[in-house]
């Protein structure tokens, strides 16, 4: 019974990984077409996965979309407010990587996002220890 449950769980993870890979390819094609805002919206859609492998795979796609953004203010203007908290979580994940270019970009986005969404956004994204990215 436990083995059957485990195999179902791993199938789900494999399904999620496949979906994330397809999403990643979609994000890459949107970036090549200079549709950065659509790319970031695609990247932020979908509930953050629970599995660590899925989270890492998801982060790669989101990271590509975040690094491609040149006009941060424009991106935030066209983004729905419901995505602010998720974006802040990804920004903090980017800040923890230590990579210079990623951190520079994440700090720029963090500044503009805090201006737009306020300190509550930071607190909500840090305090949510269940749905981490």
């Amino acid at each position: 019974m436990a083995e059957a449950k485990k195999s179902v769980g791993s199938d789900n993870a494999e399904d999620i990984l496949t979906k994330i890979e397809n999403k990643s390819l979609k994000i890459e094609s949107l970036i090549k077409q200079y549709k950065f805002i659509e790319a970031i919206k695609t990247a932020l859609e979908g509930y953050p996965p629970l599995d660590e492998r899925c989270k890492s795979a998801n982060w790669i796609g989101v990271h590509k979309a975040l690094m491609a953004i040149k006009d941060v203010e424009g991106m935030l203007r066209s983004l729905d407010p419901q995505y602010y908290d998720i974006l802040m979580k990804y920004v903090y994940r980017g800040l923890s990587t230590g990579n210079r270019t990623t951190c520079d970009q994440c700090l720029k986005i963090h500044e503009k996002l805090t201006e737009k969404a306020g300190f509550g956004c930071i607190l909500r994204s840090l305090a949510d220890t269940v749905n981490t990215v």
Partner: protein
Amino acid sequence: MRKWLVSCFLCCWLWIFLICSLAMQVLICRNEAEKCLIETSINSLRISLKVKQADELENILAKKFLRFLSMRAEAFQVLRRKPVQGYDISFLITNYHCEELQKRKLIDFIVQFMEDIDKEISELKMSVSTRGRLVATEFLKQF
């Protein structure tokens, strides 16, 4: 009696779960060399900083200067005597500090500290280079 034991056991597990969910850490990096680690717990907060050290001289100056400050941790109240492993300096802010001191001023102090540290180390480096140049010039005059 059995019900009481079960309820105590459940309370302990809930308490441990609560502590684990409250204790979290956030790592914020500016680049590979500069980072800040913030660790939270129920009644306190630990902020650890790693400052920029571009060369050997800055490395030595930063180490000496921050060790000087850490040795006088009582004067600062919120400073920790020993920095966390992998970092140069650590602050420990407890609930007592939040009650005695103003939170806004505390935050201002830490931000000001971070801004001044780079400036101080650059000034120290410049004064060491100037002194070294003067000494070398005087010494080489005899040749």
